């Protein structure tokens, strides 16, 4: 490059330009390398998490093998561990929570995109977003001290007297159990799922809606025949993302579920989930096999949530680009 610049006669100026050129020669590649390294780091962290979690579960895996997945026992005294009751608790609480989350979220999204007066749409959406911002430990605190006693004294006896013949609602009401966990997970997942559903609904073309109205459809018929079919992949993806969130929630569940190693048909009885077991026992884990078994639980949870999350992302992406 030319160094002598006739329009910059002062030697000080020339010196500054030369120094500036040197800095730029280093600055450009440095920024590029740093930026690429930062991006690579995101991938490295995921791989490192997977490696470390599997590595830590090594001794439990060599002792129990895949039988760990189906063994119901969890006894630190005799050093026998199995994940079956926690897998059951995780699946039951998350799946039943999603039965409530999906319709509630779709209904909220319909309300916010089609029904609500324009003035109150943003404020209501903001309030529901704020619900997502409340830390899980506070939802859990409220769950254990306010919601669970209410459930034990009012909701569960009512359910039991009406639906007690179904095993899910059999057994006596108790302050800790699967039902409060389901409620807590529902509260935490609804704002997330409804926010995505809302975004998907807003991508439905206005002329399609108008065409339905022009054909004489009611608002519900328009929603059912235009919005829902177009938004279906998005809704499914959003619900699965919510499921992923529910599967991995540790703290709020620990606070209300009761921490029992048991597979009970009744939702009133205590149980435990993978995430909640890790959270509640890690501090007291004595002995390498105990700790390794908790790593094993984390590995199971990681695999489940990776499958669920990757699946959901692929569905949401296809739904939005389609």
């Amino acid at each position, binding site marked *: 490059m030319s160094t002598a610049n006739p329009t910059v006669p002062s030697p000080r100026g020339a010196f500054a330009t030369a120094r500036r050129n040197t800095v*730029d020669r280093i*600055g*450009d590649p*440095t*920024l*590029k390398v740093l*930026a690429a*390294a*930062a*991006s690579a780091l*995101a*991938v490295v962290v995921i791989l*490192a998490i997977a490696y*470390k979690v599997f590595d*830590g579960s090594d001794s439990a895996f060599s002792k129990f093998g895949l039988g760990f997945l189906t063994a119901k026992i969890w006894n630190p005294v005799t050093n026998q561990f199995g994940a079956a009751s926690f897998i059951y608790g995780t699946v039951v609480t998350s799946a039943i929570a999603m039965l409530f989350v999906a*319709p509630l979220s779709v*209904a*909220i999204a319909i*309300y916010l995109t*089609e*029904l609500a007066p324009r003035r109150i749409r943003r404020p*209501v959406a903001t*309030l*529901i977003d*704020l*619900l997502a*911002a*409340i*830390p*899980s*430990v*506070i*939802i*859990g*605190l*409220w769950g254990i*001290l306010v919601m669970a006693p209410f459930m034990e004294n009012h909701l569960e006896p009512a359910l039991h007297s009406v639906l007690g013949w179904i095993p899910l609602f059999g057994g006596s009401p108790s302050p800790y159990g699967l039902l409060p966990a389901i409620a807590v997970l529902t509260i935490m997942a*609804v704002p997330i799922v409804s926010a995505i559903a809302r975004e998907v609904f807003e991508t439905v073309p*206005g002329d399609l*809606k108008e065409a339905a*109205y022009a054909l*004489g459809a*009611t608002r519900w018929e*328009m*929603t059912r025949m235009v919005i829902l079919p177009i938004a279906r992949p998005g809704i499914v993806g959003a619900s699965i993302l919510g499921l992923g*969130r529910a599967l991995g929630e*540790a703290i709020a569940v620990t*606070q209300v579920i009761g921490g029992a190693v048991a597979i009970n048909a009744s939702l009133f009885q205590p149980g435990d989930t993978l*995430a909640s077991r*890790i*959270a509640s026992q*890690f*501090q007291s884990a004595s002995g390498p096999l105990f700790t390794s078994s*908790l790593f094993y639980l*984390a590995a199971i949870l*990681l695999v489940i949530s*990776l499958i669920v*999350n*990757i699946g959901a*992302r692929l569905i949401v992406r296809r739904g939005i680009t389609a």
Partner: protein
Amino acid sequence: MSATTGSPTPKLLGASPRRKRVNRTMEVLSSLAAVLAVAVLIIVIGSVVIKGVSALSLNFLTETPAPFGVPGGGIANAIVGTFLLVLMASVVAVPIGILIGIHASEFAKPRTSNAVKFALDILNGVPTIVTGVFIFGLLVAARVSIFGLGLGGSQSGYAGAVALAIIMLPIVARSAQEVLRLVPNSLREAAVALGIARWRMVARVVLPTAAGGLITGAVLGVARVAGETAPLLLTSSIASTAVSWNPSQALSSIPVSIFTLSESASPADHARGWAAALVLIIGVLVLSVLARTLHDRSRRRLRG
């Protein structure tokens, strides 16, 4: 402007009574769902405010926890701990997150940046308790030496901060990617046409233009990790009750304090738990509202 949204209910001249009834029922059910969600928010926040206010006082913010059975005491140690943990996590996660955003908007090919986006979404979906287990295995269970600085072998503030940084990173990076993409290319071209180097263009033109959005992402990340409990339980929870500014020891934090107090059987501890929850919820909600305001303002400026 769409004629359907926001307009009064279309006149259903031809609709049969049954169709009108179904329509009305569904409208009412949808509205009820929204009312229910808002009601839950109000009930949760209302409980925290009503039960927390009575135990909240200046002493609660400035004193350390009282010994078991002694009335009074506060959460000064947890406030300092949360401040330090979140500060350290931000110092790590915010620059890296912004660099990832710069990589996507200035350097990477679309395929690469899509892959990075996917990785960040996956990272965001990793349960935080698993992140905690990871950091436990990496920095708590084993003793590692980085640049001659011995770290690990026990819980520490550093370990907790790294766990929080991993949770914060995808939030900051994804929002940086989105907002840097909105910076008009004409600005970049103008800068390059003036002959300045690329890194100067990024530092002087791209980042200042997107500053509002970048700050939004950082604030959202802070709001999220300030309330994180699960990873800290494994990495920085067995702490002394004294106020500590030393991150090489385990630091207490407000969320872990709430968790411990909520597991207690004593009503006095529950009252302290509510007061600590009030402190945390005020902090988190203020940050969330702030992030939202900044977000709206920066979008308006960038979109013109």
